[in-house]
């Protein structure tokens, strides 16, 4: 039978059924839902995790800082230094270069996200048009949407292999 997304629901602890409670099954759809569940859970748990860490502060630097603050003698300024000459051309070239790098990063992420999401084509088609299901019994924890999958993949693309 051909079913659209609004025709499916989970009942009695996760049985996939139609509106009139007929149990249904589509192997690829079920497998993609399980895969989506993994990715969405992964993204949820990855939130806030620091995989890089930060370099430890140096006790020697702290000691030097304290000594400089307490014991260094500073010259009295009688005449103010001239204002530093601005370098707008260099600055604008630098900003252009950094913007280019940001763009390349985003482009690279977008390409990777799109490539990764290709495996969920069937799920997108199911939401847009519907899919053929056979009568059989299967249990799922939830029915995940493409939007949830896209959000999870977007937030964790740098971690997903």
């Amino acid at each position, binding site marked *: 039978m051909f079913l659209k997304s609004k025709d499916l629901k989970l009942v009695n602890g996760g049985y996939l059924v139609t509106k009139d409670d007929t149990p249904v099954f589509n192997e690829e759809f079920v497998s993609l839902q399980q895969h989506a569940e993994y990715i969405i859970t992964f993204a949820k748990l990855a939130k806030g995790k620091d995989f890089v860490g930060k370099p430890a502060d140096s006790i020697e630097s702290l000691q030097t800082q304290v000594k400089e603050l307490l014991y260094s003698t500073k010259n009295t300024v009688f005449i103010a230094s001239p204002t530093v000459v601005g370098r707008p051309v260099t600055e604008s*070239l*630098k900003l*252009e*270069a*950094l913007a*280019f*790098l940001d763009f390349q990063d985003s482009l*690279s992420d977008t390409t990777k996200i799109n490539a990764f999401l290709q495996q969920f084509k069937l799920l997108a088609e199911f939401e847009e048009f519907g899919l053929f299901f056979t009568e059989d019994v299967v249990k799922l924890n939830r029915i995940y949407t493409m939007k949830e999958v896209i959000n999870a993949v977007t937030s964790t693309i740098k971690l997903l292999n």
Partner: protein
Amino acid sequence: MELLTSKKFILPKVFFITERSEIKDIPIGIPFIIGSLSIKNVLIRVLEYEVLYQRALLSGYPFNFKQILLDNGYLDIKDLDYTFGTAPRIEFSSENYLENEELDLSKPLYECNRAFTEYVKDSSCYVDIEKLKQLNVFPIWLTDNIEKAITTNIHNYASFDYNLYNKKLEGVYGALELKSPGKNLIIIDISSSIPKAVSTTCLALAKNLSESFYADLLITGSKSILYHYENIYELNVETIYEMGMNNDQSYFKKLLTSEEKIYNTAIVFGDNDHPGHAWSGRDKKISDTDGKKLCKWKIDKLISFHTKGTDDLAGYSRWFSPKQEERVSDWVKYLNK
């Protein structure tokens, strides 16, 4: 154009381009390397080594770089001992061979077109890329600070050519008198006395150096081949060792004596082997004084990269009479000491 990335760890941001025309697509200041697509993996390896080396230096402790390479999964590294006048024979498997590639183990490796990819694995020494960057002749990259690299490149870009020749815009700007900017010259000795790690690193970066430094490229082995800047795309470093790894006098002499050439700066990579020696039966011994008299190439400034230090000039620069001379020290780190 693509960003070079490694599966092992994060590399400095360096774009890889294969065509001169692609330079226009990259904003001024962004680090890039020009090279053949076929050696992309070699360039990634060069960058990976640099990252590891810089990290090790930062630690402030003595380190064994070869062990660091092994610890980071470079299990294919090899100690390629080099002997004067002979090319090493290296045992290597037929694994990863292309189906149509002929594998003839009876020949010395340099006669096989896998020589370059095998020599890259030499771990007898490491070329300190920082020394090359300090020449300010190509856009630099830094392992930890892209912003600083960009600023440096912008400054170098403006001061690099006093004629303000702008390759990106293909024009000459700023000079009152229109004249062609002076060309430069890079000489790379690939003979067997040069450690393979040195010659392969120089070759991997050869196109980049030539393109960025507006330089002709002269490669010397058993022959000397001159690649003009305009035809640098003809250089195929993967087959270059097939010319043989002896030294040369006759081809080199013919090049330097047949036509007058004027170069701003010559960067010469080499060791004590020089064209004055009678390398083949048809050669005669030529003194440096006679070599200088024969040489029709004029060089303003010479930068010598000698593999063993600064006491001598790189051999293939001995026939030039530069107005200025600079000897770069400590650019080859010997790892078997």
